């Protein structure tokens, strides 16, 4: 299925100026240099997955690019303007950030949460207008969370909550959506739902930047993967090219191979207990 979108992925939108351009980015947290050198481009209509081992600095890169952390050096430019010089309100309309572990306040319904997500479009002391209410409903529908609107957040399952979080981000009406491991706490079915949602949002023209752990998932939905290792972006490109067996061996230190079949199904074959070829059982492939 995902292969059908190849034309769109390499289409004209990717050739234009990027929505987000990160160059030579460095971030220090508590005196420690977490990110040393990161380069990254995000175009409209493109889904970019940032992958890498735990602690490599993936989240820190996307947080700094989103303006949630202050870079120590380098630039993260949105439509050509450095993130540090974009006003808070304008930034909220350029990119939405969906956090990894959302806070779940008591006494707030999904609809109220998504209305809060719309607030960058509503003037101070003003109430949301008809257009804002329509945008909230659209965001809920688009995130397949329309039937959850009147539910309290504390009553939602992990998958439902993640869809509502996505709707909160979509309500910002921004051309870019950034999500930090949106599927890491979800079961297989909820992960697939989220994956289809994110892919279709990119196909609709949004720039989607994800931090992803699941390499098979990244391979299936991403146009570009960016590999982060020890605070540096070490490779970027189409998933099947970048996530080679050599790359998996050097960056993740596992003997593994990514396989894609003609239907677009992806699988990560891992030699959990040793080298792939030495593993007992029937041959893979």
């Amino acid at each position, binding site marked *: 299925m995902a292969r059908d979108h190849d034309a769109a992925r390499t289409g004209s939108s990717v050739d234009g100026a990027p929505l987000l351009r990160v160059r030579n980015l460095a971030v220090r947290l*508590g005196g420690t240099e977490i990110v040393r050198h990161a380069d990254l481009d995000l175009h409209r209509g493109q889904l970019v997955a940032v992958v890498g081992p735990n602690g490599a600095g993936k989240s820190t890169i996307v947080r700094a690019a*989103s*303006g*949630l952390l202050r870079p120590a050096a380098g630039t993260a430019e949105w439509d050509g303007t450095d993130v540090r010089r974009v*006003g*808070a*309100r304008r*930034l*909220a309309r350029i*990119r*939405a*950030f*969906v*956090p990894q572990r*959302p*806070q779940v*306040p*008591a*006494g*707030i*319904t999904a609809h*109220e*949460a998504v209305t*809060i*997500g719309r*607030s*960058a479009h*509503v003037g*101070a*002391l003003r109430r949301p207008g008809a257009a804002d209410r329509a945008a909230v409903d659209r965001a809920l529908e688009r995130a397949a969370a329309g039937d959850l609107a009147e539910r309290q957040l504390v009553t939602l399952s992990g998958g439902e909550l993640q869809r509502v*979080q996505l709707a*909160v*981000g979509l309500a*910002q009406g921004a051309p870019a959506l950034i999500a*930090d491991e949106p599927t890491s706490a979800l079961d297989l079915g909820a992960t697939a739902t989220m994956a289809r949602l994110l892919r279709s949002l990119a196909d609709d023209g949004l720039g989607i930047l994800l931090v992803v752990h699941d390499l098979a998932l990244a391979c299936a939905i991403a146009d570009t993967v960016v590999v982060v290792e020890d605070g540096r972006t070490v490779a970027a490109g189409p998933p099947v090219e970048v996530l080679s067996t050599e790359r998996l061996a050097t960056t993740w230190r596992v003997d593994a191979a990514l396989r894609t079949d003609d239907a677009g199904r992806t699988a990560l074959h891992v030699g959990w207990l040793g080298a792939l070829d030495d593993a007992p059982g029937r041959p893979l492939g």
Partner: protein
Amino acid sequence: MTLRQAAVLGTAAVVLVIAALASISLGSTTIPLRDVFDALPVVGGGGVDRATDQIINGLRIPRTVTAILVGAALGIAGALLQGALANPLASPDVVGVTAGAGFGAMLLLLAAPGAIALVPLSALFFGLVATALVFTVAWAGRGGGSIARLILAGIAVSAVFTAGTTALMTAYPDRVSSAIFFVAGYLSYDGWRVLQDVWPYLAVGFVAAAFLIRPLDRLALGDDVAQSLGVRPRLVRLVAAGVAALLAAAAAALAGLLGFLGLVVPHAVRLAGGTASHRFVVPTSAVAGAALLLVADTTARRVAAPLDLPVGPFMVVLGVPLFLWLLRKAV
């Protein structure tokens, strides 16, 4: 706003209006409502004899207005702090303002009783000094602005001012009885005197609270979402806690230590309205806080009339059963 929320706000508003009329009408002498209306300045006044006019316009209206402002200020202060700190136990006590105001009042009541007229301003001043100390400790240096640090700084600074209050009580044991009213929380027939000094602080607090509603709603979804929406979480916490302290200090200057109201009213409002949205909780806490304090004060004046009892204990007696009932229903 849902029907249920509108009903809660409407009920609180109706109780507030009835309580305000009762507060003006009832006291050591009862004035018929007809005379109350005749004496109101908005209808020209002068429709009653001078004694009645004096009681209504000189004594009871100022007291009623003070009760409304104090109740609203404490209700809002509690709602702001509970929202800013994402902590249901937050009340003006946690940022040190209560302990500071208590010390400021005790200092004059016990050590300089000749300056009793300055008690409200001393309470206001030391309430804000305590808060400033808490904020300086909580926001200084790396990692400043965390909720845990603010609460711990508040506890530590409160302990210092409480120790100061205890020291004063030890030094002047014979005068402690004169301070009971302030500690218990009281309303008096002081006319407009204190309000004339304190109203600017209340006005700033009320206006700032209105502008904090949306940032606090964003904060409720977590710091990351708040930042995604263009809010600086630490700045919002600092400003919201500061505004809450301002309102609580002004309330202490007017009516002593009524911290319970700021803790309980926002919870009751959330439980009754079924939502934690600040768009509902902040204004409704103001109305409900004012209504509760007015009902309690009117009761306090009538129970042992002509004795004028401190309002604090009555507010607790009236408020706690209502609160516990809501608490049971909520789960």
